[in-house]
């Protein structure tokens, strides 16, 4: 069973960027709400 992706919310973009700075990771922004 896949471990669920720990998504951050849209209000946490700055936190995500800050967290990425302390790791070797980059930030993935997913705009994939229901089709328009």
């Amino acid at each position, binding site marked *: 069973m896949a471990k669920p*992706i720990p998504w951050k919310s849209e209000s946490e*973009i700055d936190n995500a960027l800050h967290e990425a700075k302390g790791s070797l990771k*980059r930030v993935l922004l*997913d*705009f994939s709400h229901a089709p*328009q």
Partner: protein
Amino acid sequence: MDTVTYPHEEVADFIQKNFIAVKIPRHELLEQIYRVPWTPTILILDPDGRERCREVGYLPPEDFLAHMNLALGRADFDDKDFSSAASFFQTVVDQHKTSETVPEALYFLGLSRSKMTGGTNDDRRAIWKQIMEAYPKCDWAKKVSVYFG
């Protein structure tokens, strides 16, 4: 993406290994700031917020993994981290053999290996020959054709 691609075990593992993931629900201001007129759109950002990759449109799990490995490889290549870049490109070539991203991955794998070993033409040619032989009609074959006079 939420019903097929993101629940896929390999995709979920890949995202957690390589990204801090942020999900943006419908949000007019953020769509304006990041210039997103259509969804699904996926952006990869550096920690300083600089955009490094943009994917528009649905990607099934296999394609998502191929495109993301290629994107991270391209980002590392541009940052001159050629060893890490080569690792991502090699993953595309080895694990996503049917992806349309393979010729591009081979192109940059050749360049990355060449940079890692001091820039000899032989390194590039051996890898680029695979593009000429397996994907002779693609744009990447045209790019390397000049080296195979």
